[in-house]
């Protein structure tokens, strides 16, 4: 891990990413990765969380959390590092499991020197744009292993691409006797579950940070709109009923910010402490995403319902953040140790 950034360095990173995203409008991953030299930030959670927060604020369509998660897994397994301009994503979810990696049923069996992959992966974020897909698959009876799949090799791989509610590309992936070379296996065979848990917590810390920027922006947009929208001869921000709702939004934003900090700080802790802290953080982040999103639409009235206004798109990204890796109930159960 690289040395912690000083306050000034953190501010500089914030500013650089923000300026880039404002200027580019619709940034593309290779430009973003190249021009901001985000290589180190992919595996450093503190830097990553700064970048994620700005991505949230701008609601930029970038696979940052996906690539960072994959990059960290490759790094941790001692595999060849991902060139920073490449897109990689992890395929773990399946139709038959909710959020627990133990339910993974996709199978990889040995075939000569290499492997054969069979199974279905559900809603794999950024898969249609990914150069590399890391696939979590069962090997043998007990263990789960990680495989590196070259998405250009389509034999035995049936992708169904679509967009998710936040406008990001995703796909369901059906593997049927998809052949892999021996070196597709990354990390030791059969021991990927703990690794996946850690990867999930890192991804969640980044998503929490993204939520901070996203929710701040929702609050700012709502304050600006209600300050300028007039009904009954006055700006609607003059109604106390709306003021208190915006104050509630502010409160949730503050707690989300603290939650993101908590999650990032917990990443270096023992697995149990880390899991507990990240889950506490995510329960609050999920709640903030839900309530700030709902209030933002409500306070915008009909305007909040339109596809044209940014509000709805921010809300939909917040709804995705709530469940990309696990939902609030899953986190609560993890805290309770169920």
């Amino acid at each position: 891990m690289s040395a912690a950034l000083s306050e000034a360095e953190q501010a500089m990173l914030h500013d650089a990413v923000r300026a880039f995203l404002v200027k580019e409008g619709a940034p593309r991953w290779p430009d973003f990765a190249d021009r901001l030299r985000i290589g180190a930030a992919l595996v450093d959670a503190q830097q990553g969380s700064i970048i994620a927060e700005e991505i949230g604020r701008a609601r930029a369509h970038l696979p940052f959390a996906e690539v960072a998660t994959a990059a960290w897994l490759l790094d941790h397994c001692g595999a060849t590092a991902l060139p920073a301009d490449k897109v990689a994503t992890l395929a773990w979810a399946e139709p038959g499991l909710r959020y627990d990696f133990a339910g993974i049923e996709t199978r990889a069996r040995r075939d000569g020197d290499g492997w054969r992959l069979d199974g279905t992966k559900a809603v794999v974020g950024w898969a249609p744009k990914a150069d590399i897909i890391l696939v979590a698959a069962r090997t043998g009876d007990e263990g789960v292993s990680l495989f590196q799949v070259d998405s250009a090799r389509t034999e035995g791989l049936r992708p169904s691409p679509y967009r998710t509610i936040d406008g990001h590309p995703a796909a369901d992936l059906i593997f049927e006797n998809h052949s892999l070379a021996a070196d597709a296996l990354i990390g030791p065979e059969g021991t990927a579950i703990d690794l996946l848990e850690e990867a999930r917590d890192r991804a969640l810390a980044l998503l929490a940070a993204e939520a901070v920027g996203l929710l701040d922006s929702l609050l700012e947009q709502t304050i600006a709109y209600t300050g300028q929208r007039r009904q009954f001869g006055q700006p609607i921000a003059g109604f106390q009923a709306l003021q208190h709702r915006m104050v509630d939004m502010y409160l949730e934003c503050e707690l989300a910010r603290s939650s993101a900090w908590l999650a990032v700080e917990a990443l270096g802790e023992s697995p149990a402490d880390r899991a507990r802290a990240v889950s506490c953080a995510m329960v609050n982040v999920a709640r903030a995403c839900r309530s700030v999103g709902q209030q933002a639409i409500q306070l915008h009235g009909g305007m909040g319902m339109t596809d044209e206004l940014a509000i709805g798109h921010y809300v939909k990204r917040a709804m995705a953040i709530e469940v990309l890796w696990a939902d609030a109930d899953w986190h609560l159960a993890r805290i309770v140790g169920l």
Partner: protein
Amino acid sequence: MLKLAPEETAFQNEVRAFFAHDYPAHVIAKNKAGQRLTKEDHVDAQHALNARGWLGVGWPRAVGGTGWTPIERYIFDQELEFAHAAGIIPMAVIYIGPIIAAFGSERQKAEWLPAILESRSFWAQGYSEPEAGSDLASLRFSAVRDGDDYILNGTKIWTSGALWADWIFCLARTSREERKQQGISLICAPLDLPGIRVHPIRLIDGSDELARIEFDNVRVPVTNRIGDEGQAWHYANVLLKTERLSYAHIGSKKRDLAKLLEEAAKLPARSGGTMDRDPAFRLAHARVEARLAAIEASILRALRGEVSMATAAALKIACTECAQTITELGIDLAGRHRLPMLERDSADWAAATPAVGPFGPAAVQSYLFERAQTIYGGSTEVQKNIIWRSLAGMAR
């Protein structure tokens, strides 16, 4: 449901049998499959209802209405929703029909009402404007008298169903008065007149059934005005009360709750098993059921007695928030399956995501669309202001 009188129970059985046997099955099938209905589907559905004399709900018998008691209407609504039948598009049948019947001229009744019942004309409600939302009385849309015509100018927005509609009924300012509620008239216009332009508005759930409509010197005969000049606020208020109670949709809430349990039995839960066994989900589900029981009892109480403005407003809030809670339970249940955003126009719409069933993508779109329930028909905040006005006396 509270106890029904024997003749009410008989009516309920009759309605149930109708939806099972005499109603277009393809409409029910599409609804069950989460496919969006086309205008033709709605026409088929309305034809079936009309053939039975059951389309003019809230209309007097004399003009082809059902003449039902409030309880009969409630039973009908509930059975329609249980059956997954198409909701009656409210603008013509539920909103303007009763107003035409009550305040319209003989000619309006003779021309407009049969056209509505026979599905020859669909209507849109032109109340809201860009600058007049919650503060509806501040509307600027103008109707200026010119001989036997009115010249209409202005913009209406958030007009539901405008793309299917043939007619629109508009609140229009016909004179400037001291109180801004006065000097407003109810004027109708066919939507294909020169000077009218309809711009669809796309919403966050991917639908585009709303529109912004511009009127540029549109000429309509004075005989298109319903009732007296300047009296529309009064008529609109008569209408608003029915509109607010029409949001009850107890039947669809029960149906949607039942559907959630059904879907839960198919979705994997933590640590094996399915979500219908998941304690957190079951408790959340029961919480909504309990709430719904109280709401249903409130609606039945209201229907059996007189409804005050405050009661109607309170029920509007309770019903719409409950509907939103159910959609929220839906996206919570769906988990990651809520992520895909799909077009739902074709029969095989769900095939786009082979690893995810149709439930999640449909649930997320309902959740998004139903955010509007607490905005339209008078937002929750505005309803609360109304309720407070009637409570304020106690504070003195």
